[in-house]
Each structure stands twice: as C-alpha cells, then as structure tokens.
C-alpha cells in the first residue's frame, strides 16, 4: 500500500481529536451567532413591528428588574464610599470623596453591575423561556400561525434589553450615589447638597453619554445571548437547563470582554 492509498483509504468517520473538535464547534457557534445577528437586524428593520409585544417585554425586563438593580447599585455605593474614604483619608485627599464616588459609579460600577445582575436575571429568564418554547414546539406553532418568531420573540426581547439597560443603569447610578452619600455622612456630616455639588462639578455629558451607550451594548449582549441560546435549545428539559445556564455564563463573559473594548474606545473618542 502506498502512502497515497493509505491517506485516501482512511475511513470518513474517524474519531476527532478533542481540541480540534472544540475548535470546530467554537467556529460553528460564532458562525451561527453571526447569522443570528444578521437575521435580528433584518427583522428589526422591516415592518410589521411588534409594538405591543415590545412594550410587554420592556415591562417584563425593565420595570420588574428595578428593585434588584436598585439594591445592587445601592450596595455598590456603600462599599465604594467606605473603601475610597479609607484610602483618601490616608492621602489627605478626603475632599475628593464625592467626585471619586460619582465618577466611578457613573463611568464603571453602575453600568457593569447592572449588566451583570441583568445577565443573571434576564439571560437565564430568556434562555429558559425560549428554550422551553423551542423544545415543546411552541416556536413551530408560532411559525405555523404565519407569525415570524424572530420578530415576535427575538427582536422584541433584544430591543427591550437595549432600551431598558441604560434606564436601569441610571437607576443603579442614582441609588449608588445616594447610598454613597449616606455611608459617608455616617462619619462625616456632609450635606447632600454639598456632596452632589462637589461630586458633579466636573461631570459632564461626555461622561454620562458613553456610559449609557455602553449600557445599550450590554443590553444587546444580554438579550442576544438569551435569545440565541434559547432558540437553539434541543433535547427536552435537559436542553432547556443547558440553554439557560449557558445564556448566563456567556452573557456575563461577553459583557466583561465588551467592557474592556468599550472602555478603550471611549477613552479614544471621549478623551
């Protein structure tokens, strides 16, 4: 047998080497994701629009997450205030406390904490909901009723996430700054008025706007991962669990990775 024959006569279904398989599956996953995003953009831009369902999702995703986000924002405010105070006092720069808290909440802590909390709540929720609709043929049923499931389920959820994340981020910012002041006021009786004046002295639109843009991107990532993992669920109840878990893991991961890239871009464009 010549070398050439040996190669060509290799059976087709040879066992795949572990790492190679992972690589191939990763490429496939990104390919499918790209296609999914393309379908989302097309479905979002062409009529008919699902206005009523969008509003319902905004309520579901936005209004009902408000308490959780407010709590998380508030906790971060307290922690930041306590930690920074300690450091600033050591350097004799205590008067910078308000601006440090306001800046770090608006620029970073507010958006990222909101996005991570929402990855957990909404990523899991959407992943499980769409996943179970997929495996019980409800998505087929929607399609059979001549309704586009992409428009009806995916576009509405992703858009709702994109619209609500900036608003929720503002809520988290507000709560964080308030509790930041309270925590500070316990040891140092700065009036709220003064705290706010000092804190926002140097904060302008260029600080707030990029952060809200960032929150919008985070919203896109969270909605996308929930919908994508949900819509490709298969294999009964177990598949629903997998879809939900992977949606949370992937959206948290991509939120953090996107944050790195976005901060870099923001520093470039809003110096």
């Amino acid at each position, binding site marked *: 047998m010549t070398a050439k024959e040996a190669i060509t006569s290799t059976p087709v279904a040879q066992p795949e080497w572990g790492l190679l398989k992972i690589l191939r599956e990763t490429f496939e996953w990104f390919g499918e994701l790209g296609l999914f995003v393309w379908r989302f953009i097309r479905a979002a831009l062409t009529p008919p629009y699902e206005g009523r369902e969008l509003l319902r999702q905004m309520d579901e995703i936005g209004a009902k997450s408000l308490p959780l986000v407010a709590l998380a924002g508030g906790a971060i405010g307290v922690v930041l205030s306590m930690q920074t105070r300690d450091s600033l006092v050591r350097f004799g720069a205590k008067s910078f406390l308000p601006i440090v808290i306001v800046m770090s909440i608006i620029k970073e802590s507010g958006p990222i904490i909101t996005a991570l909390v929402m990855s957990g709540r909404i990523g899991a929720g959407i992943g499980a*909901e769409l996943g*179970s*609709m997929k495996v*019980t*043929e*409800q998505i*087929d*049923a*929607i*399609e*059979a*009723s*001549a*309704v*586009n499931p992409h428009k009806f389920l995916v576009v509405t959820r992703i858009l709702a996430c994109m619209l609500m994340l900036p608003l929720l981020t503002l809520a988290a910012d507000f709560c964080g700054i308030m509790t930041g002041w309270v925590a500070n006021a316990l040891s140092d009786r700065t009036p709220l008025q003064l705290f706010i004046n000092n804190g926002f002295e140097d904060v302008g639109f260029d600080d707030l706007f990029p952060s809200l843009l960032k929150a919008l991107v985070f919203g896109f990532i969270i909605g996308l991962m929930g919908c994508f993992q949900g819509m490709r669920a298969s294999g009964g109840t177990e598949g629903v669990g997998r879809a939900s878990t992977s949606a949370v893991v992937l959206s948290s991961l991509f939120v953090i990775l996107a944050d790195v890239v976005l901060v870099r871009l923001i520093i470039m464009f809003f110096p």
Partner: protein
Amino acid sequence: MKMENNSSEPAIRMQDLHKAFGQQVVLNGVNLDVPRGQTLLVLGRSGTGKSVLLKLLIGLQKPDQGEIEINGAPVTSLPLKELNETRKKIGFLFQNAALYDSLTVEENVAFPLRRHSDLQDSEIRERVRELLAQVGMESALQKMPANISGGMKKRVGLARALALDPEIMLLDEPNAGLDPITAGEIDELIRDMQQERGITSVVVTHDMRSVHTIADRVAMLNRGAIVAEGTPEELKQSDDPFVVNFLQEKQEK
C-alpha cells in the same frame, strides 16, 4: 363556496419527498395527492415520519428533495411572505398540542385571531367561546395549559387550529390519549367540518376507528414510503403483508 380553484386539481400534492436527519433517512420518496374536500388518513408505526411529513406540508421543515403544492402553490420554494399567506389557510394541530404555556386557554385560541383578523376584542372573545364549545372545553377558558390534561390540550389545540376557518387541516394524532367517547366526538367534529365547509384534511392517527368514521382515503407509511393507498374498503381487501399485519394488530387492541 370554498371551491374557488379548479376542483379537479388536488388541494395538496406531494411529489417524491425525501427527508433525512444526518444519516437517518426518514422519508424516501413519498408521493400522495389529497383531493379537495376529502379527508386523508395517514397510518404508520410511530417513528416512521408521519409528524415530519405534516411539518413539511406547512413549511416548518424543508424536504431534501421533492415538491409540495398546496392549492397549486409550491410550498417548498415560496418566499416567506407568500408562504405565510398559504399558512393562514391551514389549521395545524401538533402531536403534543404545543399550546403557548404563558397564555391562558382563551388567549391561546385567540392568538391567530388577534394576529390575522380585524375582529374587535369582544368579537374575538365571542368566537373563542364558540370554538371552545365545539371541542367541549368552554369551561376551561381561564386555565393555563400546564393545569389541563393532555387530552384537553389536544382539544384546545384543535380549537386554535380551527380559529381562522381554514380550508385545509393538518392534524397530528387528534385523538391519541383521549377517552373513546371524546375521541369519537373529535372524529365527528372533523367529519362535520368536512361536510359543512368542504375542508380538506390530512389526519395522522393510530386510531383504527377513525378509518371508518372520517376517512375518505387511507395511506400507509412504512420505511419512508407510501406502501398502500386507497379507500378504506380497498385497503381492507389488500393482500399486502404489511397492510394486513398492521390492520390486524390494530384491530386486536
């Protein structure tokens, strides 16, 4: 009234349908015509691809090869918009009913009406009540799908399939899991639909009684192909070993 097209042309025409999932060949050259206004019963063991066949007909899955025409429209190659126009004329009952589990029974049946009719809210409610009464489920209006039995889900699914007054019905085991009395009622309903409104139906079933009550024609699916097709009488006189075997087995149960 519904016979707008040339009535000699079949309402549904399947030509040489092939479908495989990976290595597994499910359909291997299915040819079938369903004449307008008639009810075709598709019989076959479980796992032979009866559900897949119905999903091909409404375009939820694409055949690997072959053509499907519904009212002369080529379902396999229609653009989505036109496919959806055809889908609006078809009532589809899924094997497991596939009710939307975030909606009440009432809203499930109302879904197609809200999407595709100009009816007012109150008219929709009226129509939903009527539809649910037809399948004997009017008392479950406000229940959630998770809280009703499998047989009840089937009946709600049937009401939902009937909501838009379809020309064609595709029913996947409409009376599996129902008690004999309800199963008989469902059969009666399907027959009434066909007689009063000239609905064309494809019904997948295991229930041999349906052969006598609703079928105009019967087709038997085995190993990916139609092994026998004809009127119930023709089928009973068949000497094809598979057909004889299948009919006997079922009769004994």
